[in-house]
């Protein structure tokens, strides 16, 4: 290994910070990718739309995996960033509906809004060097306040331009993403491909990131903050960067969501929604991007199935799942399996060296 940190792409992709190495893994990965890309040829429109819906949440889950699993920062605010991006996209796209390229501007606006809020929030908590528990608490409060506020925006006076916020019923009629003649609506094949390709890029990109020197520094911060400072790193700044990246990924999921469903409501920034990324990350195993990706897809599918058969039980089951996972599989189910049967050796990082987290 070259100490300078410059290694081949193959080496970085196969680094120790993430699950899954070697030819067998990559062949399976390629096979699944090909299957996913070929699916539109024999899948129904309904099935495609569903699968796209499950996939679009993956960037949000992976962002939390990076933030919590690799950097040790627990966030209950990912759904807030998801919904902020969704609402801002809705406002901009709705007002620019006749403008070519308007929806792209809306994407930039939505992501920008989430990034801005995250940067401001991150400045206060990371430059204040606060204890770990303060961050999830204040993010929960933020989610609550936003949900309550948006919930009472029902009247006609609550609008920006021609777009109504819609109160508890939410914002409807949000135009899907449009690039040129392609309309990325929820039922379209174009949207399915967009989501699958984006998910792939995000996963591979993050995989490279965590195995790079930067990724090692990110986990070093979780393992021993003072040590990392003593090696010359501006830890406060790096932590804001990771936080903002996670917020941007959540925002990406948010923008994809409104393009898919043309709709968003305050519940998507509320407490119950805030729980979902945490559940996916905890159940899969926050220390591995792949584990979180699998858990997100599986749990989204589960929630969808439950919604049909017994929707009222969905969150109760989620609560039981979360508690049971924390009690019996604290490292996550997929990661625990990988350790026991695959001999995966990445550090657990469950406890910070100085015991402060």
């Amino acid at each position: 290994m070259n100490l300078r940190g410059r290694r081949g792409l193959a080496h970085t992709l196969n680094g120790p910070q993430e699950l899954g190495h070697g030819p067998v893994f990559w062949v399976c990965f390629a096979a699944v990718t090909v299957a996913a890309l070929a699916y539109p040829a024999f899948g129904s429109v309904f099935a495609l739309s569903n699968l796209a819906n499950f996939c679009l949440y993956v960037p949000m889950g992976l962002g939390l995996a990076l933030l919590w699993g690799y950097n040790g920062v627990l966030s209950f605010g990912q759904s807030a960033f998801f919904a902020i991006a969704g609402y801002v996209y809705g406002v901009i796209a709705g007002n620019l509906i006749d403008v070519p390229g308007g929806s792209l501007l809306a994407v930039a606006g939505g992501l920008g809004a989430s990034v801005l809020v995250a940067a401001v929030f991150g400045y206060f908590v990371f430059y204040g060097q606060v204890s770990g528990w303060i961050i999830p608490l204040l993010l929960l409060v933020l989610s609550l306040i936003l949900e309550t506020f948006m919930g009472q925006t029902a009247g006609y006076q609550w609008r920006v331009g021609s777009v109504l916020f819609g109160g508890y019923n939410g914002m409807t009629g949000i135009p899907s993403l449009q690039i040129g003649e392609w309309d990325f609506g929820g039922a379209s094949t174009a949207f399915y491909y967009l989501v699958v390709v984006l998910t792939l890029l995000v996963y591979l990109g993050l995989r490279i990131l965590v195995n790079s020197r930067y990724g090692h520094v990110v986990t070093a911060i979780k393992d021993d903050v003072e040590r990392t400072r003593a090696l010359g790193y501006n830890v406060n700044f790096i932590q804001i960067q990771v936080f903002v990246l996670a917020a941007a990924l959540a925002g990406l999921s948010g923008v994809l969501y409104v393009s898919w469903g043309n709709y968003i409501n305050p519940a998507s920034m509320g407490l119950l929604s805030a729980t979902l990324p945490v559940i996916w990350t905890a159940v899969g195993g926050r220390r591995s991007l792949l584990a979180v990706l699998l858990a997100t897809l599986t749990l989204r599918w589960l929630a969808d199935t439950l919604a049909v058969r017994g929707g009222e039980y969905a969150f109760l089951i989620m609560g039981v799942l979360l508690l049971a996972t924390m009690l019996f599989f604290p490292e996550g189910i997929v990661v625990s399996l990988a350790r026991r049967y695959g001999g995966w050796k990445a550090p657990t990082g469950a406890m910070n060296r100085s015991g402060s987290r």
Partner: protein
Amino acid sequence: MSLADLVSLVYQYLDNIAFLLLAALGLMIILGVVNVINLAHGELIMLGAYITTIAYHDANLPLPVCMLLSVLGVGLFGMALERFVVRRFYGDRLAALVATWGVSLILSQGALLALGPSMPSVPLPAWTLHYEGYSFGGYRLLLFAIALAAIIATWWVFYRTKFGIRTRATMQNPDMTRALGVDTRNIYLLTFGAGSALAGLTGALYAPTTTIVPLMGTQFVDVAFITVVVGGGANPIIGAIASAALLAGISTPLSSILGTFIGRIGLLIAALVIIRFLPRGISGYWQDLRYQRMARHSS
């Protein structure tokens, strides 16, 4: 501003302080002693309200007795929670947070499934006071008095009982305290019970003032969390009083002029700014000042 306006403002201020104190005290005590944030705190408050409501309507017990039942019931539940869930996470505080969030979901969703979307409310004692065109609810003044009593009682336990001394020792140096033969696990268990009992009390006391729904805990936790963050765990009593007084001082004028939403956002922003400069909260800062003062006097 007339005298009556001033009186009204003071009344709102005291009312807000009482709400913050009662919502946050139990959580702060647990944070200070056990160093864990119980995210199911809101649901414990909800449980307290529900126990009072059910005891009042179904068992027809007098209101104070119902409230006592809430305190005992939620206190016991809190101890069970510590014993079977929280205790496993003393090595990883963030995991404790997530686990208690799971409990919170189970409690609120379970209440929804088992008891329905709402319950009939408990009547509010109609003790109205009139002054110069304003009417004030006497019950809410009583709540302020109870909040003060709770703080005094907590202070008394911490500083005037043997249990309190052992608890403070555990807060400062758990290993040393264990080496001196104190059963710190017992202290954590009882503290968790006491903090939960306080949450139950809060739910019981506020039950007559609000609708009884499974998610009612959320209206308490967003201010409770901010109060805890600003107060800090170094000294739960100082932290609770200072934080509640400060935050109520910010939210009272804000919400009376600009509405509840601005009041709550104002609190969140205030919390962010305060922790930027006092990362361990007011009580952490106060503790640092005390140590420096002691140092100067002894040298």
